[in-house]
């Protein structure tokens, strides 16, 4: 990596537009993530958060805009290639392969790397998965499935991990656990982009936040400032 890259953000999204047919879900969004930081995109349902994540990870092709990862333009790079390059998504709703075993799910996380050491590390981090490695993943509870989804992404040894609503549908105690894991991932040097409806919680964990409304960025700033901003709290973080 050259000197200029080191100071550049690991992820840079510029003027991103995502549309489904005539409906524009994302309307010219720009944001960036410094290497090793935890940033969050918050906003109500339908604000365009998942569309942004899916565009970055190559699942959805953007209509306009550019996405740069580690200095390279990845706007048109396919999803499977991006995983090989270290950009991995933990999808909304976990997307566990329930008929495959836990171990097979983790092996699939290493489709490109075939990294058995990485699978061992995931088992050390989540002993509950190691105990049940040969059971169908569908037998796990919701919280355990979320751990599997995160573990599966870590097997690819990502340098950037995108988490789409990791706390969705989980009990408060499990949500604490998920956030603890997210902070551990970040502490290990991996850059994290977190999407959450649980905006307060996400902003408390993040360095920098972006508040989305109707496919546009309504507010941005250091996460602590957003939490302290009365207007933001009133309009977007209410209840």
């Amino acid at each position: 990596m050259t000197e200029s890259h080191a100071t550049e953000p690991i992820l840079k999204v510029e003027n991103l537009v995502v549309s489904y047919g005539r409906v524009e879900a994302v309307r010219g969004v720009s944001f960036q993530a410094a290497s090793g930081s935890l940033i969050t995109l918050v906003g109500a349902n339908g604000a365009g958060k998942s569309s942004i994540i899916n565009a970055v990870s190559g699942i959805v092709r953007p209509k306009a805009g550019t996405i740069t990862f580690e200095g390279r333009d990845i706007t048109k790079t396919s999803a499977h290639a991006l995983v090989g390059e270290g950009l991995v998504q933990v999808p909304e709703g976990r997307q566990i392969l329930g008929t495959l075993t836990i171990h097979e799910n983790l092996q699939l996380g290493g489709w490109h790397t075939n990294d058995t050491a990485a699978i061992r590390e995931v088992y050390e981090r989540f002993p509950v998965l190691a105990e049940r490695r040969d059971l169908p993943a569908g037998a796990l509870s919701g919280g355990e499935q979320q751990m599997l989804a995160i573990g599966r992404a870590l097997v690819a040894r990502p340098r950037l991990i995108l988490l789409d609503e990791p706390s969705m549908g989980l009990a408060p105690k499990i949500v604490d656990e998920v956030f603890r894991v997210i902070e551990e991932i970040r502490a290990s040097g991996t850059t994290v982009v977190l999407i959450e409806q649980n905006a307060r919680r996400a902003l408390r964990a993040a360095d920098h936040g972006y508040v989305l409304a109707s496919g546009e960025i309504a507010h941005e700033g250091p996460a602590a400032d957003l939490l302290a901003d009365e207007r933001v709290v009133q309009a977007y973080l209410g209840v």
Partner: protein
Amino acid sequence: MQQLLNGLFTGSIYALFAIGFTLVFGVLDRLNLAHPAVFAVSAFVGIELVEVAGLSIWYTLPIVFVVGGLLGIIIERVAFRPLKNRPDAHFAGLISSIALAGMFIALLQWRYGPNTRRFPADSFPSTTFTVFGAQVTLLQVAILVISVALMVALTLLVAKSRLGRGMRAIAENPTAARVLGINVDRVTMTTFAISSALGAVAGALFAMNVNSAQLGMGTAIELKGLAVIIVGGMGSLPGALVGGLLLGLAEVFAVANIGSSWRDMVAFGLLFLILLVRPQGLFGARKVREV
């Protein structure tokens, strides 16, 4: 005893044909109706290899396997991939694969004409065995062994290998497979190639078994293959194996005990009977699609 063995030989070919059919259905949720054309094309290719190139029937089988694989790639690229993002991709693929099958058969007719083709007279080994008082040729034994070996190999591939894991991931959730970094297009293409390679070997073995190949042979086995995978449970590999053997046995017994015109009546009657008792098919216990 003779009937039982004859039923097993024919049934193993049905099973090999059907297992390729059901593989694509189980992994990709698509019915590839060009599969019967691969069956027919490979029979003619097999005869050509023996007749013109002078190869022994044993050497033709691996070549037919490879030819089948290439046809599978063509089918995927031409009949399925361009249509995969359409909302009616199921139906579109069904129709376009029928169209491609028609083109394959038309090419056969252009090259070989409408007549039945046979292997040259001395192509088959003359060795015969006596098993429990029944006459069995070396060729028949080979058909059974090759079919079962290929099906076992496929089952192991799906259950144990990286490629097999990828297939099962796509079968369960294609979007999750993409997110995980699986090259879904490549695994899809490989699945078609394997499926067609098995269908091709089935076609060549079938032609050897009855020592003839006709343009319509794919059409004749198409319904049987569909019946086998429905009886076995759509997308189930063991279901296709058991279903194929059952169909082969049922046909042979119907011919021997009732009369040859009752063959299809009994075979397809059995289909309805099994579906009445077990609507999900013999091995289709789970609701989830499986390979």
